[in-house]
């Protein structure tokens, strides 16, 4: 298992570095690229957890589809340079407090739990397989699943209506 641990820590370092890079880089395109790298590293985590289905879904959906659209928008707007954005006064304190809450949650999980990294062997082989996910989506979570798709369609139509010329 040492191999797995070593791999985990290397990947974790990359993940954190890429997340920081995304936050700190001045160029929006670079930020997006760091985020994509982050997504891919997270996908490898899933593979380490014996969940290739979730890993590949992560890559297809987040890295493959959503981030391409992000890049698309950044490039179309020519908004590569993220300058000083004058935001509302409440944004900064809100961001700080939310960040503090998040960090305390993470600390709680780390110290309250035992056995930080679950052993890959201890996870059932069925975990995260297409069959399990499919069954869960179409039986227990059918309503939320359908509700989400309706929401997505509504937002899509909204975008089309907004951009459509009156002519």
């Amino acid at each position, binding site marked *: 298992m040492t191999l797995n641990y070593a791999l985990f820590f290397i990947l974790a370092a990359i993940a954190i570095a890429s997340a920081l890079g995304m936050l700190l880089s001045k160029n929006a395109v670079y930020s997006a690229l760091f985020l994509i790298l982050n997504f891919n590293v997270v996908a490898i985590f899933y593979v380490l957890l014996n969940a290739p289905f979730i890993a590949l879904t992560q890559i297809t959906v987040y890295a*493959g589809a959503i981030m*391409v659209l992000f890049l698309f928008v950044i490039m179309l707007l020519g908004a590569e340079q993220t300058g000083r954005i004058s935001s509302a006064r409440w944004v900064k304190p809100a961001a700080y407090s939310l960040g503090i809450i998040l960090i305390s949650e993470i600390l709680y999980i780390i110290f309250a739990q035992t056995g930080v990294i679950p052993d890959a062997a201890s996870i059932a082989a069925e975990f995260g397989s*297409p069959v399990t996910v499919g069954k869960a989506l179409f039986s227990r979570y059918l309503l939320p699943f359908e509700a989400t798709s309706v929401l997505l369609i509504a937002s899509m139509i909204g975008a089309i209506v907004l951009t459509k010329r009156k002519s």
Partner: protein
Amino acid sequence: MTTGSVWEWIIKSVVIVFGLLTGFAYLTLLERKVLAKIQVRIGPNRAGPMGLFQPLADAIKLIFKEEIIPSRADKIIFVLAPIITVIPALIILGVLPFGGIITLFGRQISLSLADLNVGVLYITAIASISIYGIVLAGWSSNNKYAMLGGIRSSAQMISYELALGLSFIGPILLSGSMSLHDIVAAQKPLWFVVYQPVGALIFWIATLAEVNRAPFDMPEAEQELTAGYHTEYSGMKFALFFMAEYIKMIAVSAIAATLFFGGYRFVLEDQYPILGPVWLLGKVIVLLFGMIWVRATLPRIRYDRLMAFGWKFLFPLALANVFFTAIGIVLEKLWLIPLLTIAVFLGAVVMVGISETRRWRSHVF
């Protein structure tokens, strides 16, 4: 995991990568020869017998060409983009079975790199990230043609990925597995193209768009955007884009052969498993020939019509295909699938034809 199997992996990976690189080189020659024959020309015949060393000469030329980086380009991404483009093309075939199990030096060797139980998903995932190279190349060149080419390609590939993904579902449903090995095994009695004629067609059209081949070669439409996203590239960096395009052609042909045309299986393969890769290669060449033929024959579709075709025709058709496939499987009457899907396909074609013809001649003054 023994040392032996690690070595086996490494050797197989190297063989696949070198196979693809050689395949790329000779695919360019094949394309030029076939195009020439179709166009009443001779084609390359100077370098070596029948021009067989032409790819070598091309490679030498490209290596020694000057590498130009535009002064106002984003240098890091400009250099990274061709690499990002090539890697997905090289690794996409990692889950593809090239043959059964052969015995070599007393060792049982499976002629495939990995048998992922979600192999099909792996292919879609890799295909979806292969857009980045093109988009980034377009953006980092700081050139309007390249930019438009990059934007076009991202929009195009996202649109056609939907139809592509849906056409995967037919074979998945029929074989009940997402592993390419199982899909090939399930085609032992009959190739899936028989059950999935429309699915195979959708797959093929969508892959033409996915690998930016004519008549969907929008991103690099030379008549409009000079060379599209790789306008500013030269030398080996340009060659990498070129390489990625052709390797992707080989890869999608191999995937098409695996999903719909029985993969490596053909006559005598059971007795002599070594024939598997040969049959697969044969099928790939036939499919590649089809791609080249299309390029020599058809003009380019306009960009907005390409998008309309993808969203308004191909995507609904792929949905219908999935729907009727599922019906056939539930009713356990597989012969219904081709009948129903072909009927729907023809109906759609006739409808589009009628509406188009009406539009064509609507204005007379």
